[in-house]
């Protein structure tokens, strides 16, 4: 008989999506505020800086979680397959934070200023909670974080829309454009893993709590970035508008 502490649930990914669907209007409203047309160029620069702060934690989090899996593996049947997935994913994500700095430079921002700035509290709340859960609870919590961030990846047309709304060159949108393509495949793989892993009820709760917390903080971050009065990062002057382009 299967130990209930380590049971798999083939419906878990669907249930997680159903739960996150209840939080989706908040994230959608926040991203709508972030991408509204007026003042888009300055907001895009702030977005790149904040997203760099978030993305530079991605590979370290995956590696930390994989290391914890290795420690847990002897007595935890989920740890082996989870650790292998995390290490594979770390290789796929490596270097993407550098893409953001390159986009920022093309967009007229100052990568050194973005690196030096104190990361937004919402970023620390999102990524920092994962460090805590990985270290002090279970590395599977990171899957909730992935489910939300990759589940709210840039829509396929967003890069084009931002280019039109900011009059910045296409090279300033590599990260947004490429993640719109990459994250769809990542999500399907993640759902398969969630349904297969022998997690048991408590670990599944950890994934759901992590996912809902991430959704809440993501909405908060987008709202903060959307606020005109509060520049998130000190940035170099933006390029002069193209004649005939948007204000």
């Amino acid at each position: 008989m299967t130990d209930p502490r380590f049971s798999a649930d083939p419906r878990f990914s669907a249930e997680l999506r159903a739960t996150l669907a209840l939080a989706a209007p908040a994230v959608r409203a926040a991203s709508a505020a972030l991408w509204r047309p007026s003042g888009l160029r300055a907001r895009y620069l702030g977005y790149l800086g904040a997203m760099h702060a978030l993305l530079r934690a991605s590979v370290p989090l995956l590696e930390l979680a994989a290391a914890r899996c290795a420690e847990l593996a002897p007595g935890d049947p989920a740890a082996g397959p989870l650790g292998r997935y995390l290490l594979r994913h770390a290789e796929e994500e490596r270097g993407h934070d550098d893409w953001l700095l390159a986009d920022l430079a093309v967009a007229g921002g100052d990568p050194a200023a973005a690196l030096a700035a104190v990361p937004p509290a919402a970023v620390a709340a999102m990524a920092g909670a994962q460090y805590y859960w990985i270290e002090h609870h279970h590395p599977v919590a990171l899957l909730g974080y992935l489910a939300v961030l990759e589940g709210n990846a840039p829509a396929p047309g967003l890069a084009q829309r931002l280019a039109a709304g900011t009059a910045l060159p296409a090279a300033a949108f590599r990260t947004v454009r490429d993640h719109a393509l990459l994250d769809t495949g990542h999500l399907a793989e993640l759902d398969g893993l969630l349904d297969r892993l022998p997690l048991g009820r408590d670990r599944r709760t950890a994934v759901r709590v992590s996912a809902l917390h991430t959704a809440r903080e993501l909405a908060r971050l987008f709202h903060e970035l959307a606020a005109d009065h509060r520049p998130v990062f000190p940035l170099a002057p933006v390029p002069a508008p193209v004649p005939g382009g948007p204000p």
Partner: protein
Amino acid sequence: MTDDRTARIGRLYEAGFVVDAFSEEQVEVLLGLGPDELNILLDIKSRLDEAAPEVEAHSEIAGGALF
């Protein structure tokens, strides 16, 4: 329905979730949530309700989260 389940549905209803419009499957998922999950969900809903009405009007999915 147990008192606990009734109480959870009541909290969601009071928070403004249109529980009547949920499918039976959605209700089951909600009833399976623990106290922490339910509290975060209610917090998210209250923040959404506090947001300016114009952002609620946008229903398109633009995304922008990165991992």
